């Protein structure tokens, strides 16, 4: 029962790390989802100056490993005169990744709204912006909420990348504790469990939420 004692000892040390992890997750999502929504509209823009840069951003954001984006923001930006503290750098990098991935979710959501809905809006004399705001968007949001929550759970785990630029989040707390005590297994399983408990709780929440949604 050494494990239990070690976990007991580690747990209070890890809690501030969990707090940083949660803050990092929320901050990245709060910046990243609106970015994703904007990119979703921008990649289908008829104007090339809007469309092409957004396509490049989306494809790079999805194609490049998150760690490279993180390093570019943390180590690359200072070379052009913009130095960000590690929490902010991690937030920016994860927000870019979130924006790139969620833009595809938003795009699919917009496309999932039947074309007849747009036709009905137009036939009623609604102008394009109102058609989007009052008819298309509310229906698209319903489609995108479950996959967005799914992405949020992945991102929550993905924040552990910020360990690489020494953000004091959950994984770095665990790693530090482990390198001091050499109890790697105990430290990492506890950290893993802390990630898992919150992830699984969120998944369970989504599942009950979507089940309720399916009822007419």
């Amino acid at each position, binding site marked *: 029962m050494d494990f239990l004692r070690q976990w007991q000892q580690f747990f209070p040390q890890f809690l501030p790390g969990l707090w940083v992890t949660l803050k990092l997750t929320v901050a990245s999502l709060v910046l990243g989802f609106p970015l994703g929504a904007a990119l979703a509209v921008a990649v289908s823009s008829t104007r090339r100056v809007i469309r092409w840069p957004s396509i490049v951003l989306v494809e790079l954001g999805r194609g490049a490993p998150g760690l490279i984006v993180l390093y570019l923001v943390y180590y690359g930006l200072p070379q052009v005169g913009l130095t960000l503290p590690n929490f902010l750098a991690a937030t920016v990098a994860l927000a870019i990744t979130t924006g790139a991935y969620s833009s595809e979710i938003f795009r699919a959501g917009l496309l999932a709204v*039947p074309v*007849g*809905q747009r*036709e*009905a*809006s*137009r*036939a*009623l*004399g*609604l*102008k*394009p912006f*109102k058609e989007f705001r*009052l*008819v298309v968007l*509310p*229906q698209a949001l*319903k489609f995108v909420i479950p996959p967005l929550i799914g992405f949020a759970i992945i991102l929550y785990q993905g924040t552990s990348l910020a360990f690489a630029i020494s953000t004091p989040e959950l994984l770095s707390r665990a790693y530090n504790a482990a390198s001091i005590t050499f109890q790697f297994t105990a430290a990492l399983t506890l950290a893993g469990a802390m990630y898992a408990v919150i992830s699984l709780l969120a998944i369970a929440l989504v599942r009950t939420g979507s089940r309720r949604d399916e009822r*007419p």
Partner: protein
Amino acid sequence: MTAGERPADASGTGRRAGEAGPDRSPVPLLRLENISISYRGHEVVHEVSLDVSPGEVVALIGPSGAGKSSLLRCVNFLEVPAAGTVYLEGRPVGFVQRRGRSVPANATALAEHRREVGMVFQNFNLFPHLTAVENVMLAQIHSLGRSKADARERALKELAHVGLASHADAKPAKCSGGQQQRIAIARALAMDPKLMLFDEPTSALDPELGIEVLTTMRRLADEGMTMIVVTHEMHFAEEVADRIVFMADGRIVEQGPARQVMREPVHERTKRFLAAVTDR
């Protein structure tokens, strides 16, 4: 119209076909002039002309692929004609002249035109995230600028008119197909349209539910609404329409007073079509 009038000329050219037909006031409510519509280079409507007088009920019939729905949809520019002009009360709509060329009007101009033309779709196209009364209110508020209270009052009136006052707060998913289509009719009528377009309004419905929609439409016709109805309901066309327009292969083949076209079709193509659909 005179009793001895023959159905419209059967030459197949839309222009002449459009000139024949029942008597009408000097300025038709709607005039389609030499309308052609293409999809990806494939022409589905070829130089069709059609006038509709105020209060007239026109049934557009014909085999699928004849271009009926495309022609109907081009009245409110859900389909943009490749050539030709749409006039509402004598005003050309949907296009503006720029440097001697016809270019599509902007969204605002189109929206203004569409407010005057009601449309009912085959698949109802109610807004699923809104209740029945909210469906009927939405465009009143956001297209016509009516106050919320006025829009609600009008919406409840229109819902009562189609017999659905009790469903005002129901979401469309809770309503039967026939009820949904009647809500869609109420939604269009609340805009005070000058003209109503019906695109196969009963095709997605069981016959039994179709009846309640047809009854609603019949009453609308009796009240003097100008209507163009694309339909496969031959009884409805014969009994309710003033004029039947038979289309095939993107052209008007024959048109005339409803009973005449149904009972004594002149054109061979019309005879064949009517024989096929009334045999069942």
